[in-house]
């Protein structure tokens, strides 16, 4: 990049010599597989949001079964626990807050 328009992509140390393409494919593949297992609920929610069609219904069924499987083996539980914790943080109020009791959403 020209000097007057620096890019954050230019790191301040000498570049590594190895090619990054295969490495990056590996990183993205592992991250995707991890999320497919540990975050199956998001995939299910996304499929459920798609326009209805026979293929979408079939995919939604598979996604439901996949979520059940990941929860049965426990790999989907950390995400659920973190999400519940986050929802509790969202509805927490300062003592004496003017916010009406019961107006807050309860955690999932």
């Amino acid at each position, binding site marked *: 990049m020209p000097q007057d328009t620096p890019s954050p992509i230019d*790191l301040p140390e000498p570049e590594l010599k190895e090619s*990054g393409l*295969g490495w990056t494919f*590996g990183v993205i593949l*592992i991250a995707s597989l991890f999320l497919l297992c540990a975050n199956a609920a998001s995939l299910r929610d*996304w499929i459920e949001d798609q326009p209805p069609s026979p293929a979408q219904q079939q995919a939604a069924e598979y996604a439901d079964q996949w979520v059940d499987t990941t929860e049965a083996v426990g790999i989907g539980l950390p995400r659920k626990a973190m999400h519940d914790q*986050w929802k509790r943080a*969202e509805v927490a109020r300062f003592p004496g*807050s003017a916010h009406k009791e019961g107006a807050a959403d309860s955690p999932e």
Partner: protein
Amino acid sequence: MLFPTLSFGLFFLIVFTVVWAANGSNEWRKILLLVASWVFYGAWDWRFVALLIGSALLNWGAAELIWYNREAPAGRRRAIMIVGVVGNLAILGFFKYYGFFVEQLGDILHAAGYARDLPLMQVVLPVGISFFTFQGMSYLADVHAERLAPAKLLDVTLLMSFFPHLVAGPIVRGSDLLPQFEESPRLTRDMASMGLVLIVWGLFKKAVVASELSTGLVDPVFFDPAAHSRLDLIAAAYGYAVQIYCDFSAYSDMAIGIAALLGYKFPLNFNQPYRAQSLQDFWRRWHISLSSWLRDYLYIGALGGSRKGFARQCANLMATMLLGGLWHGAKWTFVIWGGLHGGVLALERIWDRIRPQGFPRLPRVLGILITFHVVLVGWIFFRAESFDAAVAYLKGIATAGLASDVLTPLACVLILFGMAIHFTPANLGQRIALQVRLLPAWALGLLVGITVLIVDAMRFEGVAPFIYYQF
């Protein structure tokens, strides 16, 4: 198709795979990127893909004509450039400002006693039009000034359509991107590491900080300021300052990261703006691609900058910022926001000139605090629905009580976090990238997966569009 969604994630996985598979032919690679960019843009409205192509054709054609006439008298080349710039402004003006100006004209005619039914139309605003028309104009100006040779039609079209920056910037100039299009890029570990750091960091800022502050605090208070206390109004103003930074800088970070994974380098667009010690300093840190565009092509290029005397310099600053405000949208609140920034920038210049010798400079902390609060007042006008609403908001801060019904511990933590990140080392992201580039792929893959999982667990349900999509 928003960046922090699964739809975009799947789209990007396909593009990433196909584009790198075609890396043997740079031309095919660019054609694939162009088609992907049109699919991305067409996800909003297919009709506007034609506008994008038309805009690219206009700029490519005008640049070719300027170059063809490079031995001709300067006036002819200048005239061609002006016609091209006017063409871009006409596109922008029609889609973005038509309704606003017709409405203002109607009001003026009505006030003068000439009530007329003017041809009002509901014009749909194409996403990102302000970004790609500015890109087109700077390309023409650069070719005219011979800072840049005209590029091939494919390259110009891709420059304007490239999906990472298409809808909300950064405004990547031809001089930055066109040379990179000339050869097949190479993906290094450094580029990929920094790209991934920026994508994950942007995802966190947008999906967690900006979305949470927007839905839990800022939107309810700005929707009905009169129903909220002084404390809520103050908290929402600070909340909006953090929200707009986390929202817009997140888009830029993700855009830069996505482009990096495709092998291209975009310029820096944000550099911890709330640690600025003056408004001039702020504009070197906030939306850098727009502020440098306005500086180079409008303030210096068209208005003459400081070349025509001090009074003219101040007037030029004001004019630049007023137009910069109007660039954001056809609303008086944006003009007032621009006027406030222009006015304070001019005052800073005047103070620099009249400050007595030996008069102590403002302590750094005080400079940061004053600058931030000038920016904060500007944000109230920027966010408010109307001038009256902004004034009512400011009056509410001065009058209402201290009880709060929307300020939560979580909102306080997010506001403090959003401010604190401005005072971390400026190159923290790069330092992290230097560490992660040494990791094996499986370890970094797991790390990225775990981080995205945490962000997804914290994110607000659904993703609101980025604030700058409307510009």
